[in-house]
Protein backbone atom coordinates (compact mmCIF):
# COMPACT_ATOMS: atom_id res chain seq x y z
CA UNK A 1 0.00 0.00 0.00
CA UNK A 2 1.30 3.43 -0.87
CA UNK A 3 2.09 5.78 1.98
CA UNK A 4 -0.86 7.91 2.95
CA UNK A 5 -0.06 11.52 2.17
CA UNK A 6 -3.57 12.82 2.52
CA UNK A 7 -4.27 15.25 4.03
CA UNK A 8 -0.99 16.39 5.55
CA UNK A 9 -0.69 15.39 9.19
CA UNK A 10 -3.61 13.01 8.95
CA UNK A 11 -3.34 9.35 9.79
CA UNK A 12 -5.86 6.75 8.75
CA UNK A 13 -6.92 4.06 11.18
CA UNK A 14 -8.00 0.96 9.31
CA UNK A 15 -10.04 -1.65 11.12
CA UNK A 16 -11.78 -4.85 10.10
CA UNK A 17 -9.56 -5.38 7.06
CA UNK A 18 -10.10 -1.87 5.66
CA UNK A 19 -13.87 -2.02 5.82
CA UNK A 20 -13.78 0.57 8.58
CA UNK A 21 -11.49 3.55 8.32
CA UNK A 22 -11.26 6.67 10.43
CA UNK A 23 -9.36 9.81 9.62
CA UNK A 24 -7.34 11.10 12.51
CA UNK A 25 -5.59 14.44 12.61
CA UNK A 26 -2.31 13.90 14.43
CA UNK A 27 -1.79 17.34 15.93
CA UNK A 28 -5.47 17.56 16.88
CA UNK A 29 -5.23 14.19 18.65
CA UNK A 30 -2.19 15.30 20.62
CA UNK A 31 -4.00 18.49 21.67
CA UNK A 32 -7.10 16.53 22.75
CA UNK A 33 -5.01 14.02 24.73
CA UNK A 34 -2.96 16.76 26.42
CA UNK A 35 -6.08 18.74 27.38
CA UNK A 36 -7.82 15.60 28.63
CA UNK A 37 -4.78 14.83 30.78
CA UNK A 38 -4.89 18.39 32.11
CA UNK A 39 -8.61 18.08 32.94
CA UNK A 40 -8.08 14.76 34.77
CA UNK A 41 -5.14 16.16 36.74
CA UNK A 42 -7.06 19.29 37.63
CA UNK A 43 -10.07 17.19 38.63
CA UNK A 44 -7.88 15.14 40.98
CA UNK A 45 -6.54 18.35 42.50
CA UNK A 46 -10.02 19.86 42.79
CA UNK A 47 -11.32 16.90 44.79
CA UNK A 48 -8.68 17.50 47.45
CA UNK A 49 -9.46 21.22 47.76
CA UNK A 50 -12.23 22.72 49.88
CA UNK A 51 -13.20 23.74 53.37
CA UNK A 52 -12.09 20.33 54.49
CA UNK A 53 -8.78 19.54 52.70
CA UNK A 54 -8.23 15.90 51.79
CA UNK A 55 -5.20 13.97 50.58
CA UNK A 56 -5.17 11.96 47.36
CA UNK A 57 -4.91 8.84 49.53
CA UNK A 58 -8.16 9.74 51.25
CA UNK A 59 -9.84 10.28 47.88
CA UNK A 60 -8.78 6.84 46.67
CA UNK A 61 -9.98 5.47 49.99
CA UNK A 62 -13.34 7.15 49.59
CA UNK A 63 -13.88 5.28 46.32
CA UNK A 64 -12.44 2.02 47.65
CA UNK A 65 -14.70 2.24 50.69
CA UNK A 66 -11.89 2.31 53.27
CA UNK A 67 -12.59 5.88 54.42
CA UNK A 68 -15.31 7.09 56.78
CA UNK A 69 -18.84 7.80 55.57
CA UNK A 70 -18.26 11.53 56.10
CA UNK A 71 -15.27 11.65 53.77
CA UNK A 72 -17.12 9.51 51.27
CA UNK A 73 -20.05 11.91 51.27
CA UNK A 74 -17.81 14.97 50.78
CA UNK A 75 -16.02 13.36 47.84
CA UNK A 76 -18.76 11.47 46.01
CA UNK A 77 -21.81 13.60 46.76
CA UNK A 78 -20.21 16.99 47.43
CA UNK A 79 -17.23 17.61 45.19
CA UNK A 80 -17.43 15.06 42.38
CA UNK A 81 -20.73 16.16 40.79
CA UNK A 82 -19.51 19.75 40.65
CA UNK A 83 -16.25 18.77 38.96
CA UNK A 84 -18.04 16.54 36.45
CA UNK A 85 -20.54 19.30 35.79
CA UNK A 86 -17.84 21.94 35.24
CA UNK A 87 -15.96 19.76 32.75
CA UNK A 88 -19.05 18.57 30.85
CA UNK A 89 -20.61 22.04 30.80
CA UNK A 90 -17.35 23.48 29.47
CA UNK A 91 -17.25 20.89 26.70
CA UNK A 92 -20.93 21.41 25.82
CA UNK A 93 -20.63 25.20 25.69
CA UNK A 94 -17.48 24.96 23.57
CA UNK A 95 -19.23 22.60 21.13
CA UNK A 96 -22.12 25.02 20.82
CA UNK A 97 -19.64 27.85 20.19
CA UNK A 98 -17.84 25.77 17.56
CA UNK A 99 -21.13 25.04 15.76
CA UNK A 100 -22.20 28.68 15.52
CA UNK A 101 -18.72 30.02 14.75
CA UNK A 102 -18.53 27.56 11.89
CA UNK A 103 -22.04 28.39 10.67
CA UNK A 104 -21.40 32.15 10.72
CA UNK A 105 -17.77 31.72 9.56
CA UNK A 106 -16.82 34.26 12.20
CA UNK A 107 -15.06 33.85 15.58
CA UNK A 108 -17.59 36.28 17.09
CA UNK A 109 -20.53 34.07 16.11
CA UNK A 110 -20.90 32.42 19.48
CA UNK A 111 -24.19 31.78 21.33
CA UNK A 112 -23.17 34.00 24.27
CA UNK A 113 -22.56 36.96 21.92
CA UNK A 114 -25.50 36.56 19.52
CA UNK A 115 -28.21 36.25 22.16
CA UNK A 116 -28.94 32.52 22.24
CA UNK A 117 -27.55 32.10 25.78
CA UNK A 118 -29.43 35.16 27.01
CA UNK A 119 -32.58 33.82 25.35
CA UNK A 120 -32.14 30.46 27.06
CA UNK A 121 -31.82 32.26 30.40
CA UNK A 122 -34.98 34.28 29.66
CA UNK A 123 -36.85 31.03 29.00
CA UNK A 124 -35.57 29.35 32.15
CA UNK A 125 -36.31 32.49 34.18
CA UNK A 126 -39.88 32.66 32.90
CA UNK A 127 -40.48 29.04 33.85
CA UNK A 128 -38.99 29.53 37.32
CA UNK A 129 -40.78 32.79 38.14
CA UNK A 130 -44.12 32.20 36.47
CA UNK A 131 -44.70 28.46 36.50
CA UNK A 132 -42.15 27.22 38.99
CA UNK A 133 -40.61 23.82 38.45
CA UNK A 134 -37.62 21.53 38.59
CA UNK A 135 -34.56 21.28 36.36
CA UNK A 136 -36.43 19.46 33.58
CA UNK A 137 -39.05 22.21 33.33
CA UNK A 138 -36.34 24.87 33.40
CA UNK A 139 -34.37 23.03 30.72
CA UNK A 140 -37.38 22.93 28.39
CA UNK A 141 -37.95 26.60 29.14
CA UNK A 142 -34.31 27.34 28.35
CA UNK A 143 -34.52 25.36 25.09
CA UNK A 144 -37.71 27.19 24.06
CA UNK A 145 -36.20 30.56 25.00
CA UNK A 146 -32.92 29.83 23.20
CA UNK A 147 -34.69 28.63 20.05
CA UNK A 148 -37.07 31.62 20.10
CA UNK A 149 -34.07 33.95 20.35
CA UNK A 150 -32.30 32.08 17.54
CA UNK A 151 -35.35 32.24 15.27
CA UNK A 152 -35.82 35.93 16.07
CA UNK A 153 -32.18 36.65 15.20
CA UNK A 154 -32.40 34.66 11.95
CA UNK A 155 -35.66 36.31 10.87
CA UNK A 156 -34.34 39.82 11.60
CA UNK A 157 -31.03 39.11 9.87
CA UNK A 158 -32.64 37.50 6.80
CA UNK A 159 -32.27 39.23 3.45
CA UNK A 160 -32.03 36.65 0.64
CA UNK A 161 -30.12 34.22 2.83
CA UNK A 162 -28.35 34.91 6.07
CA UNK A 163 -24.91 36.45 6.05
CA UNK A 164 -22.66 35.77 9.05
CA UNK A 165 -21.67 39.28 10.00
CA UNK A 166 -25.20 40.66 9.74
CA UNK A 167 -26.42 37.83 11.95
CA UNK A 168 -23.85 38.71 14.61
CA UNK A 169 -24.77 42.40 14.69
CA UNK A 170 -28.48 41.57 14.91
CA UNK A 171 -27.67 38.95 17.57
CA UNK A 172 -25.85 41.50 19.72
CA UNK A 173 -28.89 43.78 19.56
CA UNK A 174 -31.31 40.96 20.43
CA UNK A 175 -28.99 39.92 23.25
CA UNK A 176 -29.13 43.45 24.72
CA UNK A 177 -32.93 43.48 24.51
CA UNK A 178 -33.20 40.12 26.24
CA UNK A 179 -30.84 41.31 28.99
CA UNK A 180 -33.32 44.11 29.66
CA UNK A 181 -36.21 41.62 29.70
CA UNK A 182 -34.33 39.43 32.19
CA UNK A 183 -33.68 42.43 34.43
CA UNK A 184 -37.35 43.37 34.34
CA UNK A 185 -38.42 39.79 35.14
CA UNK A 186 -36.17 39.74 38.20
CA UNK A 187 -37.33 43.22 39.35
CA UNK A 188 -40.98 42.26 39.45
CA UNK A 189 -40.37 38.93 41.20
CA UNK A 190 -40.77 38.38 44.96
CA UNK A 191 -37.65 39.17 46.96
CA UNK A 192 -36.39 35.65 47.72
CA UNK A 193 -37.11 34.48 44.19
CA UNK A 194 -35.33 37.53 42.82
CA UNK A 195 -32.28 36.86 44.99
CA UNK A 196 -32.13 33.23 43.89
CA UNK A 197 -32.59 34.23 40.25
CA UNK A 198 -29.88 36.87 40.48
CA UNK A 199 -27.38 34.40 41.96
CA UNK A 200 -28.31 31.90 39.26
CA UNK A 201 -28.01 34.66 36.67
CA UNK A 202 -24.32 35.10 37.42
CA UNK A 203 -23.65 31.49 36.38
CA UNK A 204 -22.58 29.33 39.27
CA UNK A 205 -21.88 25.71 40.18
CA UNK A 206 -21.97 26.42 43.93
CA UNK A 207 -25.23 24.55 44.51
CA UNK A 208 -24.62 21.76 42.00
CA UNK A 209 -25.13 18.13 43.03
CA UNK A 210 -25.91 14.91 41.18
CA UNK A 211 -29.55 16.05 40.92
CA UNK A 212 -28.43 18.77 38.49
CA UNK A 213 -25.50 16.92 36.93
CA UNK A 214 -27.22 13.69 35.84
CA UNK A 215 -29.84 15.36 33.59
CA UNK A 216 -27.08 17.44 31.98
CA UNK A 217 -25.09 14.27 31.29
CA UNK A 218 -28.16 12.66 29.72
CA UNK A 219 -28.83 15.72 27.54
CA UNK A 220 -25.22 15.85 26.34
CA UNK A 221 -25.20 12.09 25.66
CA UNK A 222 -28.28 12.48 23.44
CA UNK A 223 -26.97 15.54 21.56
CA UNK A 224 -23.37 14.56 20.86
CA UNK A 225 -24.11 11.64 18.47
CA UNK A 226 -26.03 14.08 16.23
CA UNK A 227 -22.95 16.27 16.20
CA UNK A 228 -20.77 13.34 15.17
CA UNK A 229 -23.04 12.68 12.17
CA UNK A 230 -23.19 16.32 11.08
CA UNK A 231 -19.58 17.35 11.84
CA UNK A 232 -18.32 16.85 8.26
CA UNK A 233 -21.32 18.44 6.51
CA UNK A 234 -20.81 21.40 8.88
CA UNK A 235 -17.16 21.68 7.84
CA UNK A 236 -18.13 21.48 4.15
CA UNK A 237 -20.67 24.29 4.61
CA UNK A 238 -17.77 26.63 5.45
CA UNK A 239 -16.95 26.56 1.72
CA UNK A 240 -20.32 28.11 0.85
CA UNK A 241 -23.74 26.59 0.21
CA UNK A 242 -23.18 25.91 -3.51
CA UNK A 243 -19.92 24.02 -3.00
CA UNK A 244 -21.36 22.02 -0.09
CA UNK A 245 -24.57 21.23 -1.97
CA UNK A 246 -22.68 19.99 -5.02
CA UNK A 247 -20.87 17.55 -2.70
CA UNK A 248 -24.17 16.13 -1.49
CA UNK A 249 -24.70 18.18 1.67
CA UNK A 250 -28.19 19.51 2.35
CA UNK A 251 -27.47 22.97 3.80
CA UNK A 252 -30.94 23.69 5.22
CA UNK A 253 -31.26 20.31 6.93
CA UNK A 254 -27.71 20.46 8.30
CA UNK A 255 -28.12 24.00 9.58
CA UNK A 256 -31.58 23.32 11.04
CA UNK A 257 -30.48 20.28 13.00
CA UNK A 258 -27.25 21.87 14.19
CA UNK A 259 -29.09 25.03 15.24
CA UNK A 260 -31.32 22.95 17.50
CA UNK A 261 -28.37 20.89 18.81
CA UNK A 262 -26.28 24.00 19.50
CA UNK A 263 -29.09 25.81 21.30
CA UNK A 264 -30.02 22.63 23.23
CA UNK A 265 -26.44 22.27 24.50
CA UNK A 266 -26.48 25.84 25.79
CA UNK A 267 -30.00 25.42 27.21
CA UNK A 268 -29.06 22.26 29.14
CA UNK A 269 -26.19 24.07 30.84
CA UNK A 270 -28.03 27.37 31.38
CA UNK A 271 -30.97 25.63 33.07
CA UNK A 272 -28.57 23.89 35.47
CA UNK A 273 -26.08 26.64 36.24
CA UNK A 274 -27.27 29.91 34.70
CA UNK A 275 -25.74 31.73 31.76
CA UNK A 276 -21.97 31.18 31.62
CA UNK A 277 -20.36 33.47 29.08
CA UNK A 278 -17.19 33.37 27.01
CA UNK A 279 -16.37 29.64 27.17
CA UNK A 280 -18.32 29.12 23.94
CA UNK A 281 -16.62 32.17 22.45
CA UNK A 282 -13.02 31.49 23.40
CA UNK A 283 -12.59 27.69 23.54
CA UNK A 284 -13.07 26.87 19.82
CA UNK A 285 -10.62 29.58 18.72
CA UNK A 286 -7.98 28.69 21.31
CA UNK A 287 -8.31 25.01 20.34
CA UNK A 288 -8.05 25.93 16.69
CA UNK A 289 -4.83 27.78 17.26
CA UNK A 290 -3.34 24.89 19.24
CA UNK A 291 -4.46 22.20 16.79
CA UNK A 292 -3.69 24.40 13.76
CA UNK A 293 -6.83 23.07 12.12
CA UNK A 294 -8.60 24.56 9.12
CA UNK A 295 -11.79 26.06 10.50
CA UNK A 296 -13.04 25.14 13.96
CA UNK A 297 -12.85 21.48 14.90
CA UNK A 298 -15.22 19.95 17.39
CA UNK A 299 -13.21 17.53 19.53
CA UNK A 300 -10.31 19.88 20.40
CA UNK A 301 -12.88 22.61 21.12
CA UNK A 302 -14.73 20.36 23.56
CA UNK A 303 -11.52 19.40 25.37
CA UNK A 304 -10.48 23.06 25.56
CA UNK A 305 -13.90 24.07 26.91
CA UNK A 306 -13.73 21.42 29.63
CA UNK A 307 -10.26 22.57 30.65
CA UNK A 308 -11.22 26.28 30.65
CA UNK A 309 -14.41 25.92 32.66
CA UNK A 310 -13.00 23.46 35.21
CA UNK A 311 -9.98 25.71 35.77
CA UNK A 312 -12.28 28.73 36.11
CA UNK A 313 -14.44 26.91 38.64
CA UNK A 314 -11.44 25.86 40.75
CA UNK A 315 -10.36 29.52 40.73
CA UNK A 316 -13.90 30.63 41.61
CA UNK A 317 -13.88 28.36 44.65
CA UNK A 318 -10.37 29.03 45.91
CA UNK A 319 -9.51 32.62 44.91
CA UNK A 320 -11.30 34.33 47.81
CA UNK A 321 -11.95 31.21 49.93
CA UNK A 322 -13.99 30.78 52.00
CA UNK A 323 -16.05 33.21 49.91
CA UNK A 324 -17.34 31.31 46.88
CA UNK A 325 -17.44 33.31 43.64
CA UNK A 326 -19.85 32.36 40.85
CA UNK A 327 -17.83 30.76 38.04
CA UNK A 328 -19.53 33.12 35.58
CA UNK A 329 -17.64 36.02 37.15
CA UNK A 330 -14.31 34.35 36.41
CA UNK A 331 -15.20 33.44 32.83
CA UNK A 332 -16.46 36.98 32.19
CA UNK A 333 -13.19 38.47 33.52
CA UNK A 334 -10.94 36.11 31.55
CA UNK A 335 -13.23 36.16 28.52
CA UNK A 336 -13.50 39.95 28.51
CA UNK A 337 -9.77 40.22 27.99
CA UNK A 338 -9.99 37.62 25.22
CA UNK A 339 -12.88 39.44 23.54
CA UNK A 340 -10.96 42.74 23.51
CA UNK A 341 -7.94 40.98 21.98
CA UNK A 342 -10.20 39.32 19.39
CA UNK A 343 -11.88 42.59 18.42
CA UNK A 344 -8.51 44.31 18.06
CA UNK A 345 -7.09 41.55 15.86
CA UNK A 346 -10.28 41.52 13.72
CA UNK A 347 -10.14 45.29 13.32
CA UNK A 348 -6.47 45.09 12.28
CA UNK A 349 -7.30 42.53 9.61
CA UNK A 350 -9.75 44.84 7.84
Amino acid sequence: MSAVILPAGTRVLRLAGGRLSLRVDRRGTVVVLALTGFVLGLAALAVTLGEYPLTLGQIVGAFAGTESDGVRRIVVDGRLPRIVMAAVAGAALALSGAIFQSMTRNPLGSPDIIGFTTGAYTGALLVTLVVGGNYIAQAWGALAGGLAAAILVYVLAYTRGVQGFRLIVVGIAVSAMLHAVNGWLILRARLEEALAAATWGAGSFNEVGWRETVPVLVAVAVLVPLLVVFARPLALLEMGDDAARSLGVRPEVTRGILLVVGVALVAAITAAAGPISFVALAAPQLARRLARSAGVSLLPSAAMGAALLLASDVLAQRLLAPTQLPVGVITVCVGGVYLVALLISQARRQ
Partner: protein
Amino acid sequence: MHSRLTGWALQVGYDQRTVLHQLDVDIPDGAFTVIVGPNACGKSTLLRSLARLLKPSEGAVLLDGRAISSYSAKEVARIVGLLPQSSTAPDGITVVDLVSRGRFPHQKLLRQWSEVDERAVRDAMAATSVTDLATWPVDELSGGQRQRVWVAMALAQQTPLLLLDEPTTFLDIAHQVELLDLFGRLNRDSGRTLVAVLHDLNQASRYADNLLAMKDGRVVAQGAPRDIVTEDLVYEVFGLRARIIPDPESGTPLVIPLLGAH
Protein backbone atom coordinates in the same frame (compact mmCIF):
# COMPACT_ATOMS: atom_id res chain seq x y z
CA MET B 1 -27.08 11.01 -29.37
CA HIS B 2 -27.68 9.86 -25.84
CA SER B 3 -28.18 12.13 -22.81
CA ARG B 4 -28.04 11.12 -19.17
CA LEU B 5 -28.91 14.65 -18.07
CA THR B 6 -31.86 16.48 -19.56
CA GLY B 7 -34.06 19.41 -18.63
CA TRP B 8 -37.69 19.29 -19.58
CA ALA B 9 -39.98 22.37 -19.72
CA LEU B 10 -37.89 24.06 -17.02
CA GLN B 11 -39.43 27.09 -15.41
CA VAL B 12 -37.06 28.61 -12.85
CA GLY B 13 -37.14 31.98 -11.12
CA TYR B 14 -36.10 34.01 -8.12
CA ASP B 15 -38.85 35.75 -6.14
CA GLN B 16 -41.24 37.13 -8.80
CA ARG B 17 -38.82 37.17 -11.72
CA THR B 18 -38.87 34.15 -14.06
CA VAL B 19 -35.40 33.43 -15.44
CA LEU B 20 -35.91 30.26 -17.47
CA HIS B 21 -39.03 29.98 -19.62
CA GLN B 22 -40.21 26.46 -20.51
CA LEU B 23 -36.65 25.50 -21.40
CA ASP B 24 -35.86 22.08 -22.88
CA VAL B 25 -32.27 20.92 -22.97
CA ASP B 26 -30.35 17.66 -23.56
CA ILE B 27 -26.73 17.42 -22.43
CA PRO B 28 -25.03 15.04 -24.91
CA ASP B 29 -23.00 12.34 -23.17
CA GLY B 30 -19.24 12.47 -23.57
CA ALA B 31 -19.29 15.92 -25.16
CA PHE B 32 -17.91 19.28 -24.02
CA THR B 33 -20.94 21.53 -23.99
CA VAL B 34 -20.47 25.26 -23.55
CA ILE B 35 -23.30 27.62 -22.67
CA VAL B 36 -22.97 31.20 -23.95
CA GLY B 37 -25.24 34.21 -23.88
CA PRO B 38 -25.46 37.81 -22.68
CA ASN B 39 -25.35 38.71 -18.97
CA ALA B 40 -28.46 37.73 -17.02
CA CYS B 41 -29.77 35.43 -19.77
CA GLY B 42 -30.06 32.52 -17.33
CA LYS B 43 -26.83 30.59 -18.11
CA SER B 44 -25.84 30.06 -14.50
CA THR B 45 -29.44 29.48 -13.50
CA LEU B 46 -29.66 26.67 -16.05
CA LEU B 47 -26.42 25.13 -14.82
CA ARG B 48 -27.47 25.37 -11.18
CA SER B 49 -30.85 23.83 -11.97
CA LEU B 50 -29.16 20.93 -13.78
CA ALA B 51 -27.01 20.32 -10.67
CA ARG B 52 -30.10 20.50 -8.41
CA LEU B 53 -28.91 23.66 -6.68
CA LEU B 54 -32.16 25.31 -7.75
CA LYS B 55 -35.59 23.77 -7.76
CA PRO B 56 -37.65 24.45 -10.90
CA SER B 57 -41.18 25.70 -10.23
CA GLU B 58 -42.39 23.75 -13.27
CA GLY B 59 -40.86 21.03 -15.42
CA ALA B 60 -38.10 18.73 -14.23
CA VAL B 61 -34.45 17.84 -14.55
CA LEU B 62 -34.06 14.17 -15.42
CA LEU B 63 -30.98 12.12 -14.60
CA ASP B 64 -30.94 8.71 -16.29
CA GLY B 65 -34.62 9.17 -17.02
CA ARG B 66 -35.60 9.76 -13.40
CA ALA B 67 -36.44 13.09 -11.78
CA ILE B 68 -33.24 14.38 -10.16
CA SER B 69 -35.25 15.44 -7.12
CA SER B 70 -36.02 11.77 -6.38
CA TYR B 71 -32.33 10.96 -5.79
CA SER B 72 -30.65 11.45 -2.42
CA ALA B 73 -28.27 14.41 -2.20
CA LYS B 74 -25.22 12.13 -2.04
CA GLU B 75 -26.41 9.97 -4.96
CA VAL B 76 -26.60 13.04 -7.19
CA ALA B 77 -23.17 14.17 -5.97
CA ARG B 78 -21.68 10.85 -7.12
CA ILE B 79 -22.96 11.39 -10.67
CA VAL B 80 -23.08 15.17 -11.22
CA GLY B 81 -20.33 17.49 -9.97
CA LEU B 82 -20.42 21.26 -10.01
CA LEU B 83 -17.69 23.84 -9.74
CA PRO B 84 -19.58 26.87 -8.36
CA GLN B 85 -18.84 30.44 -9.41
CA SER B 86 -17.49 31.34 -6.00
CA SER B 87 -16.48 29.26 -3.02
CA THR B 88 -14.69 30.13 0.19
CA ALA B 89 -11.65 28.18 1.32
CA PRO B 90 -11.76 27.86 5.13
CA ASP B 91 -8.95 29.79 6.86
CA GLY B 92 -5.66 27.94 6.85
CA ILE B 93 -6.87 24.87 4.89
CA THR B 94 -4.18 23.11 2.85
CA VAL B 95 -4.50 22.17 -0.80
CA VAL B 96 -4.63 18.44 -0.16
CA ASP B 97 -7.22 18.86 2.58
CA LEU B 98 -9.45 20.90 0.28
CA VAL B 99 -9.08 18.49 -2.64
CA SER B 100 -9.87 15.52 -0.40
CA ARG B 101 -13.19 17.13 0.52
CA GLY B 102 -14.30 16.23 -2.99
CA ARG B 103 -14.50 12.62 -1.78
CA PHE B 104 -17.32 13.36 0.67
CA PRO B 105 -20.16 11.86 -1.43
CA HIS B 106 -18.25 8.55 -1.61
CA GLN B 107 -17.55 8.33 2.12
CA LYS B 108 -19.48 7.05 5.08
CA LEU B 109 -19.35 7.83 8.78
CA LEU B 110 -17.30 4.69 9.47
CA ARG B 111 -15.52 4.61 6.15
CA GLN B 112 -13.81 7.96 5.99
CA TRP B 113 -10.75 7.23 3.88
CA SER B 114 -10.27 4.29 1.52
CA GLU B 115 -7.52 3.59 -0.96
CA VAL B 116 -9.94 4.58 -3.72
CA ASP B 117 -10.25 8.00 -2.09
CA GLU B 118 -6.47 8.21 -1.88
CA ARG B 119 -6.02 7.42 -5.56
CA ALA B 120 -8.78 9.79 -6.66
CA VAL B 121 -7.18 12.69 -4.80
CA ARG B 122 -3.70 11.90 -6.13
CA ASP B 123 -5.00 11.67 -9.71
CA ALA B 124 -7.00 14.89 -9.40
CA MET B 125 -3.98 16.78 -8.07
CA ALA B 126 -1.74 15.36 -10.80
CA ALA B 127 -4.22 16.23 -13.57
CA THR B 128 -4.40 19.85 -12.42
CA SER B 129 -0.62 20.09 -11.66
CA VAL B 130 -1.10 21.00 -8.01
CA THR B 131 0.69 17.97 -6.52
CA ASP B 132 3.71 20.11 -5.62
CA LEU B 133 1.45 22.52 -3.78
CA ALA B 134 -0.20 19.76 -1.70
CA THR B 135 0.85 21.04 1.71
CA TRP B 136 0.41 24.75 0.93
CA PRO B 137 -2.34 26.79 2.59
CA VAL B 138 -4.88 27.71 -0.09
CA ASP B 139 -4.93 31.40 1.06
CA GLU B 140 -1.30 31.78 -0.04
CA LEU B 141 -1.84 30.67 -3.66
CA SER B 142 -2.25 32.88 -6.72
CA GLY B 143 -5.66 33.17 -8.38
CA GLY B 144 -4.73 30.72 -11.14
CA GLN B 145 -3.38 28.14 -8.71
CA ARG B 146 -6.41 28.51 -6.46
CA GLN B 147 -8.82 27.90 -9.33
CA ARG B 148 -6.86 24.77 -10.30
CA VAL B 149 -7.23 23.53 -6.71
CA TRP B 150 -11.01 23.99 -6.84
CA VAL B 151 -11.06 22.14 -10.15
CA ALA B 152 -9.01 19.37 -8.51
CA MET B 153 -11.62 19.11 -5.76
CA ALA B 154 -14.37 18.72 -8.37
CA LEU B 155 -12.25 16.11 -10.22
CA ALA B 156 -11.63 14.14 -7.03
CA GLN B 157 -15.40 13.75 -6.82
CA GLN B 158 -15.03 11.54 -9.95
CA THR B 159 -18.44 12.25 -11.39
CA PRO B 160 -19.17 11.20 -14.98
CA LEU B 161 -20.80 14.63 -15.45
CA LEU B 162 -19.04 17.82 -14.44
CA LEU B 163 -20.65 21.27 -14.61
CA LEU B 164 -18.43 24.37 -14.50
CA ASP B 165 -19.89 27.78 -13.72
CA GLU B 166 -17.67 30.46 -15.31
CA PRO B 167 -14.46 28.60 -14.44
CA THR B 168 -12.17 31.11 -16.21
CA THR B 169 -13.48 34.36 -14.71
CA PHE B 170 -10.80 36.38 -12.88
CA LEU B 171 -7.96 34.51 -14.63
CA ASP B 172 -5.51 36.05 -17.09
CA ILE B 173 -5.52 34.74 -20.65
CA ALA B 174 -2.65 32.28 -20.16
CA HIS B 175 -4.38 30.69 -17.16
CA GLN B 176 -7.69 30.66 -19.04
CA VAL B 177 -6.15 28.70 -21.91
CA GLU B 178 -4.33 26.38 -19.53
CA LEU B 179 -7.59 25.55 -17.75
CA LEU B 180 -9.59 25.12 -20.95
CA ASP B 181 -6.89 22.81 -22.37
CA LEU B 182 -7.20 20.80 -19.15
CA PHE B 183 -10.97 20.54 -19.58
CA GLY B 184 -10.48 19.50 -23.21
CA ARG B 185 -8.08 16.73 -22.14
CA LEU B 186 -10.41 15.55 -19.38
CA ASN B 187 -13.24 15.34 -21.85
CA ARG B 188 -11.23 13.47 -24.49
CA ASP B 189 -9.19 11.16 -22.24
CA SER B 190 -11.75 10.05 -19.71
CA GLY B 191 -14.91 10.56 -21.72
CA ARG B 192 -16.33 12.77 -19.02
CA THR B 193 -19.32 14.88 -19.97
CA LEU B 194 -18.50 18.55 -19.37
CA VAL B 195 -20.79 21.54 -19.34
CA ALA B 196 -19.27 25.00 -18.86
CA VAL B 197 -20.63 28.52 -18.81
CA LEU B 198 -18.12 30.76 -20.62
CA HIS B 199 -18.16 34.44 -21.48
CA ASP B 200 -15.72 34.46 -24.37
CA LEU B 201 -17.51 33.40 -27.54
CA ASN B 202 -14.23 32.69 -29.35
CA GLN B 203 -12.94 30.40 -26.61
CA ALA B 204 -16.34 28.72 -26.49
CA SER B 205 -16.22 28.11 -30.25
CA ARG B 206 -12.72 26.71 -30.05
CA TYR B 207 -13.28 24.25 -27.19
CA ALA B 208 -16.94 23.24 -27.42
CA ASP B 209 -18.25 20.17 -29.24
CA ASN B 210 -21.70 21.44 -28.55
CA LEU B 211 -22.52 25.11 -28.19
CA LEU B 212 -25.68 26.25 -26.49
CA ALA B 213 -26.62 29.88 -27.15
CA MET B 214 -29.12 31.38 -24.72
CA LYS B 215 -31.09 34.62 -24.60
CA ASP B 216 -33.76 35.75 -22.14
CA GLY B 217 -34.07 32.33 -20.52
CA ARG B 218 -34.49 30.42 -23.77
CA VAL B 219 -32.16 28.33 -25.92
CA VAL B 220 -31.72 30.16 -29.23
CA ALA B 221 -29.45 27.67 -30.97
CA GLN B 222 -27.62 24.45 -30.18
CA GLY B 223 -25.05 22.49 -32.16
CA ALA B 224 -21.42 22.36 -33.26
CA PRO B 225 -19.90 25.89 -33.26
CA ARG B 226 -19.01 25.66 -36.99
CA ASP B 227 -22.66 24.98 -37.77
CA ILE B 228 -24.37 27.54 -35.63
CA VAL B 229 -22.06 30.54 -35.06
CA THR B 230 -23.14 32.99 -37.76
CA GLU B 231 -23.30 36.77 -38.04
CA ASP B 232 -27.06 36.58 -37.65
CA LEU B 233 -26.83 34.46 -34.50
CA VAL B 234 -24.30 36.79 -32.85
CA TYR B 235 -26.58 39.71 -33.63
CA GLU B 236 -29.67 37.90 -32.40
CA VAL B 237 -28.10 36.77 -29.14
CA PHE B 238 -25.76 39.60 -28.22
CA GLY B 239 -27.11 42.49 -30.35
CA LEU B 240 -23.61 42.85 -31.78
CA ARG B 241 -22.72 43.29 -35.45
CA ALA B 242 -19.67 41.18 -36.21
CA ARG B 243 -17.77 39.40 -38.92
CA ILE B 244 -17.11 35.70 -38.54
CA ILE B 245 -13.81 34.39 -39.89
CA PRO B 246 -12.17 30.99 -39.36
CA ASP B 247 -9.76 30.96 -36.41
CA PRO B 248 -6.31 30.73 -38.12
CA GLU B 249 -5.17 28.19 -35.49
CA SER B 250 -8.16 25.88 -35.06
CA GLY B 251 -10.44 26.72 -37.98
CA THR B 252 -13.33 27.30 -35.58
CA PRO B 253 -15.46 30.46 -35.89
CA LEU B 254 -13.79 33.65 -34.73
CA VAL B 255 -16.04 36.60 -33.96
CA ILE B 256 -14.64 40.00 -34.95
CA PRO B 257 -16.90 42.89 -33.83
CA LEU B 258 -17.38 45.57 -36.50
CA LEU B 259 -16.09 49.05 -35.78
CA GLY B 260 -18.95 51.05 -34.29
CA ALA B 261 -20.99 47.89 -34.09
CA HIS B 262 -23.50 49.29 -31.61
